[in-house]
């Protein structure tokens, strides 16, 4: 798509080129984003959350694993504990900062894996067509027949919880939709004239896919994948909440929400904090994905 730049091969004086210069695709996208303040603001939020997670060892005021029987379930702003303490007397602020690591990891990894795997399957299915397409797409249909929460719970539940099983389960949930998007986009361009022309001029399958198909498939797949990040964060935290994801005592927002649930009669506000963190993160990813979709003008 980036190569549809009018005037790219234009030979002329500098002034003439400047007058004729039309913004390229990515430039247009950047131009649109520059004035989309909502998207910019929430991109900033994501950057903050990511920085907080990366530099957690430096930022967290206390050790997130250090328990203290004397300071159990203290309210927000109790002495040096800015956001209070949890049911084992661990500092909430430190745990929330550290918890971002797990939540981002569990949110981003499955989407990235599924984008590569599902995208590849979809491009192959769409490009090759025929029996192979039938085989791949009908298999995807079967996994489509499970609601996403149920499939994630089914796989990680039977495999017995744990972080890696959670990651596998979530990846499995996201492969079918991404595969379908990639397949549709590939099938749409497969028979267009420029692919025909490339083949006529002797291009092999690999180079046709790389140069002519991928450019058309990447945008819708990436946009869709970006919208899945928020779902993935919610689902991953949900799995941890059910005891199927990250294992204690590792700080993770979903897990913290689950263990603190017992204490809502004691310190309701402290108990609600991990959920606020999940909410803000998922909201940010959702809004940024929406902004990107509008800027890139892709209909998924």
């Amino acid at each position, binding site marked *: 798509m980036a190569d549809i730049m009018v005037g790219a091969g234009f030979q002329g004086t500098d002034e003439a080129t400047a007058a004729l210069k039309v913004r390229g695709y990515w430039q247009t996208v950047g131009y649109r984003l520059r004035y989309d303040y909502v998207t910019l603001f929430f991109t900033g939020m994501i950057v903050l959350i990511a920085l907080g997670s990366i530099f957690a060892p430096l930022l967290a005021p206390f050790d997130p694993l250090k328990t203290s029987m004397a300071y159990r379930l203290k309210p927000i702003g109790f002495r040096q504990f800015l956001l209070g303490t949890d049911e084992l007397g661990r500092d909430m602020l430190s745990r929330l900062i550290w918890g971002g690591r797990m939540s981002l990891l569990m949110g981003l990894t499955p989407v990235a894996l599924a984008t590569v795997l599902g995208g590849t399957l979809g491009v192959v299915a769409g490009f090759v067509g025929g029996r192979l397409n039938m085989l791949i797409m*009908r298999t995807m249909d079967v996994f489509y027949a*499970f609601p996403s929460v149920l499939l994630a719970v089914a796989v990680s539940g*039977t495999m017995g919880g744990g972080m890696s099983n959670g990651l596998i389960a979530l990846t499995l949930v996201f492969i079918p939709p991404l595969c379908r998007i990639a397949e549709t986009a590939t099938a749409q361009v497969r028979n267009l004239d420029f692919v025909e022309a490339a083949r006529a001029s002797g291009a092999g399958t690999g180079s046709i896919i790389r140069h002519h198909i991928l450019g058309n498939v990447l945008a819708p797949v990436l946009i869709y994948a970006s919208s899945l990040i928020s779902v993935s964060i919610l689902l991953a935290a949900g799995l941890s909440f*059910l005891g199927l994801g990250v294992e204690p005592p590792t700080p993770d927002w979903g897990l913290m*929400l689950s263990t603190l649930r017992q204490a809502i009669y004691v310190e309701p506000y402290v108990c609600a904090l991990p959920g606020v963190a999940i909410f803000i993160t*998922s909201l940010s990813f*959702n809004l940024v994905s929406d902004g990107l979709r509008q800027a890139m003008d892709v209909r998924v």
Partner: protein
Amino acid sequence: MWAYAARRILYAVPIAIGVTVVCFCLVFLAPGDPIQMLLPPDASQADLEYLKKLYGFDQPIPVQYVKWLMRAIGGDLGVSLQTSRPVLDEVSRALSNTVIISLGAVMLAFSLGFALGTTAAYFVGRPIDRVVTGVSVVGVSVPNYWLGIVLIIIFAVNLGLLPATGMGSQGSDHFRLSNWSQLKYAILPVITMSMVPLGIIMRNTRSAVAEVLAHDFVQTLRAKGLGELAVLRHAVRNALPQILAVMGLQFGYLVGGSILIETIFTWPGTGFLLSKAILTRDIPVLQGAILILALCFVATNLAVDLVQTAVDPRIKRA
């Protein structure tokens, strides 16, 4: 239309078979010997041999699958390791409880979401549209298991207006929505559950109605002197079948994905049954519940498609 309906039903059959294959394979995902999963830990060697024969674990896997499928079709999904009751009984009893709150949630989401989405579509770009769009993003972004906890904190802990968890002293067998002392237990789960479908229905209604309003025939309606309310009625009627389909699909998602909300509210539905089965590693219940929920989802999708074809005269599927 009948030809389409017949084909659509035929198409659902291989999907349903695929679903049974996936559910059958779940047992092999579980760590350890599948036969051990079906037995309580204190089972004797003789029991083990007997069960191995009974389930045909000494035979090749495809044969095992066909046998398992035949038993499942006959209604035998095995026995719960925890309660020793047939899995089918446990699941079907829980399913009705899940359907109660899912239906409530989807109806609440539809009435609110449709009204707000239509309003937003009519005032595209105006402040009210922005508010509605914002609410719909919040609806799909909010972790509903957290929202449930927050609602419990507000309405049960602080205000003491509604019960926090459970289904009331009557239990699930005598649950009646007409009785306030029982109905009040369903209110918080229904509200919590309605958030995601609310966001999705709002967003879909907004774009569908806005799309219809941009058509030329709307201008014609205005030109011939119709009032704005009548114009809107035409637009809504055009968008409605599509939104009803979205609502049907959301209902399917809610029934299948009720585990988190039922865990929070200890609502004795299929989700709660699943989370109990996960904790106790009760694989027969896990497998049976997942199978039945997935098949329900396939059936819901099928029904939505068929109803939409019947309701919407514009869809002429050859």
